[in-house]
């Protein structure tokens, strides 16, 4: 097992408990999707997985080694992390941003060499954004920026890739394309853990899904089994229907608004007049 999390818990030094008793594992080539409402600690959990915050309880094992015994440099050679917000203070060139991903592999006082530059350009090309290489990173679109950051994470040559809500700021088409890229990377053997706000993304791209609610693991396992209507409802506190599109082999999840609910109730009432109405 590449990544094993054992009964992990984290509280801030001030006392605020973020999560507790989370156990899960990720294998090479797997995509684990983290789901949970706003503010349940998905970002903090991901930061813990990268060793940025030390756990308060439990342990994280990377290839059998305890993460807390590894230096920042050692961790960064195994794990790449894409934070949710990246506010760039300075207008670096796209190529330079990607080159920065090589930092774990170059000597302490050295600068990137020709091999690193070749690798960065190759990665940009594989993501089809080589034409951006000379552009200032501050002047490209949000979708392009996400791909540039991904390229920067990939030249780190990670075994594990952590993505904090990578699709949140992307438009519909870019979301789908990004998921496609993620699946491709997993096929190449990289383990991926990503948090997302969209259960659909887990249903589309994940091999396993973990749901966090109130700081605890509510469900962990295969998306089709874990992501039931009841569980999604409990997670987000909203009515949903999960629909199975059999011809495409896709499950999708749709929220049900109050107007739709009334309509559904009415239709159900016509079809099954004896069914008791749900308590509300």
């Amino acid at each position, binding site marked *: 097992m590449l990544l094993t999390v054992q009964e992990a818990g984290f509280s801030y030094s001030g006392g605020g408990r973020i999560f507790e008793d989370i156990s899960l594992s990720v294998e090479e080539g797997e995509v684990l999707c983290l789901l949970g409402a706003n503010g349940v600690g998905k970002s903090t959990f991901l930061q813990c997985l990268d060793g940025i915050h030390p756990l308060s309880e439990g342990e994280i094992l990377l290839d059998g080694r305890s993460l807390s015994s590894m*230096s920042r440099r050692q961790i960064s050679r195994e794990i790449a992390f894409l934070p949710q917000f990246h506010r*760039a*203070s300075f*207008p670096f060139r796209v190529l330079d941003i990607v080159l*920065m991903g090589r930092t774990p592999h170059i000597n302490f*006082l050295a600068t990137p060499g020709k091999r690193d530059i070749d690798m960065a350009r190759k990665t940009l090309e594989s993501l089809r954004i080589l034409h951006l290489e000379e552009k*200032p990173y501050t002047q490209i679109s949000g979708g392009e920026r996400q791909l540039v950051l991904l390229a920067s994470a990939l030249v780190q040559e990670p075994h594990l890739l952590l993505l904090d809500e990578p699709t949140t700021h992307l438009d519909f088409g870019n979301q789908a394309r990004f998921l496609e890229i993620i699946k491709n990377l997993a096929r190449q053997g990289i383990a991926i853990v990503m948090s997302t706000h969209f259960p659909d993304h887990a249903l589309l791209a994940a091999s396993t899904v973990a749901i966090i609610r109130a700081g605890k693991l509510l469900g962990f396992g295969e998306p089709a089994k874990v992501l039931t209507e009841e569980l999604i409802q409990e997670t987000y506190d909203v009515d949903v229907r999960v629909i199975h599109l059999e011809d495409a082999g896709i499950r999708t999840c749709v929220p049900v608004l109050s107007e739709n609910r009334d309509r559904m109730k009415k239709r159900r009432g016509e079809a099954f007049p004896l069914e008791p109405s749900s308590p509300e």
Partner: protein
Amino acid sequence: MQTWIQRRPRSWRILLVGLPLAMLLLSFMVGRYPIPLRTVAKILLAQIFPIEHDWPHTVEAVVLQIRMPRIIGALLVGSGLAVSGASFQGIFHNPLVSPYILGVASGAAFGAALGILFSFGTVMLHVTSLLFGILAVIFTFAIGRAQSKAPPLVLVLSGVVVGSFFSALISTIKYVADPFEKLPTIVFWLMGSLSRITPDLIAVAAPLMGIGVVALGAMRWRINILSLGEEEALALGIDTGKERGCIIFLCTLLTASAVCLSGIIGWVGLVIPHLARMMVGPDYRHLFPACLSLGGFYVLGIDNLARTLSQGEIPLGILTALIGAPFFAWLLTKNRVGW
């Protein structure tokens, strides 16, 4: 928008080497006692090659004993402040900070003023100046840190707070200083002047600043990564606490030594990094040499004006602010700063 360096990599290198060199030669020539270029060149070359002495001894004394230390001092101060300003901006990922704004300069100046008050030797002067400079930046960072995540504005504000606290301490020193001997020295030096520079002051400051510049230069790629932000740098394997601390120490060393040489010279550490960034972009691999070159060029040029504009000597700090402030205002209004 491509930066200048991407469009013409060769011409910028020539310019960045040529500008300070030309200014260097000019600085030997101008002053109360003008010396022609030929003579300057011959005197300088005579230090290395055997050339027949066909110039008066007084001219040689002016070039080597009066102008030489001052020119070296100007280059050290300009390059040191510009490089430390650029590095501070990088590691605080904040284009608005400078040694002056972070309170480092005021802290270092207080330390040096103490040194003058108690007639410390050159080495002790550097030590107290460095100590109080570090103290000031620790205060600034601690206050900024208390506000959760130290957004750029809080850091600037806490720098202002710390800076004015140390300015008040400096005023206290002025108040108690002997009005006939110590006070004029402190006041004139605080306004920023290179006229106090002596060879033994250079002998202490130059190696210190040399170490600072070389060490910072070696870390230029690390500064790039730190300028991305805390989480990003950690994820890329940087031990941010240690490395940022190391860079802050080196920047403070440069600032404190510059303050010992010339008092408080504002604006160089803020304006030069911006100018350099406009020319070569934000990458410290290029920004660093550009700041060295432009910083030295700028202060040397300003010092030449200070020496020649009037009969007396205009304090350098006044001129750098008179030129630097409007220039920065122009940058802001033109929105050319690019952050």
